C-alpha cells in the first residue's frame, strides 16, 4: 500500500516534470525538468529496490545520481559554448 502510493506519487512527479520538459519553453526549463526527473528516478529505484528486497538496486540509484549530475553539467557547458560562438558570430 505504502509502496503503491509512494511509487504512484513519484511517477506523478516524473510525469509533471516530463510535461515541463516537453513544454519548454526555454532550454533551461528543459534542463531543470530533466534534473528533477533524474533525481526522482534515483528515489524511485531506491524505493523499488528496498521494497522488492533487492538491495543491489541501490547501487544503481547511486550511479543514476552521478549520471544525472554529469548530464546536467554537460548540457550547461555545451550550451554555454554554443552561445559563445553565437556571440562571436554576431560580432
Amino acid at each position, binding site marked *: 500500500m505504502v509502496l503503491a502510493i509512494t511509487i504512484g506519487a513519484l511517477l506523478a512527479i516524473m510525469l509533471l516534470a516530463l510535461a515541463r520538459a516537453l513544454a519548454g519553453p526555454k532550454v533551461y526549463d528543459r534542463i531543470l525538468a530533466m534534473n528533477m526527473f533524474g533525481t526522482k528516478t534515483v528515489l524511485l529505484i531506491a524505493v523499488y529496490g528496498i521494497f*522488492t*528486497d*533487492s538491495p*543491489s*538496486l541501490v547501487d544503481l540509484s547511486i550511479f543514476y545520481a552521478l549520471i544525472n549530475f554529469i548530464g546536467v553539467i554537460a548540457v550547461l557547458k555545451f550550451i554555454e559554448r554554443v552561445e559563445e560562438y553565437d556571440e562571436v558570430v554576431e560580432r
Partner: protein
Amino acid sequence: MGFSLFNYWVVILLMMAGFYTVIASGNLVKKIVGLNIFQTSVFIMYISIGKVFGGSVPILAANTDLYSNPLPHVLILTAIVVGVATTSLALSLAIRIREAYGTVEENDILEISRREDDEE
C-alpha cells in the same frame, strides 16, 4: 490474450517512432538520435522476452528460486555496447561532414554533391 502481448505492441510503437525519425528526418544528428531510439526499443523487446512473472533479478539469492532469464540480459549488454560504438562513429562522421560541407542537413548536402557531380 490481448493484454499478454500489450508490451510487445508498445515496443513496436517505439521502434516505429525511432525508425521514422531515421528515415524521415533530414538532420544527420537527429537521424542518429532516431537510430538510438530504434535500437533501445529493440533492447526492451529482448528484455521483455526474458521476463518471468514472479521471477527476480538473476542474482543468486536465498529467498527465491525463480529467476528471470539471464541470457537476453547478456545479449543486450553486448548490443548496447555495439550501439554506443555505432553512435560515436556516426557522431564523428557528422562532425566531419559539418566541417567539409558546412551543414548537417541531408538536403543541402545532396544539393552540394549534385553540383559537384555536375561539374566533373
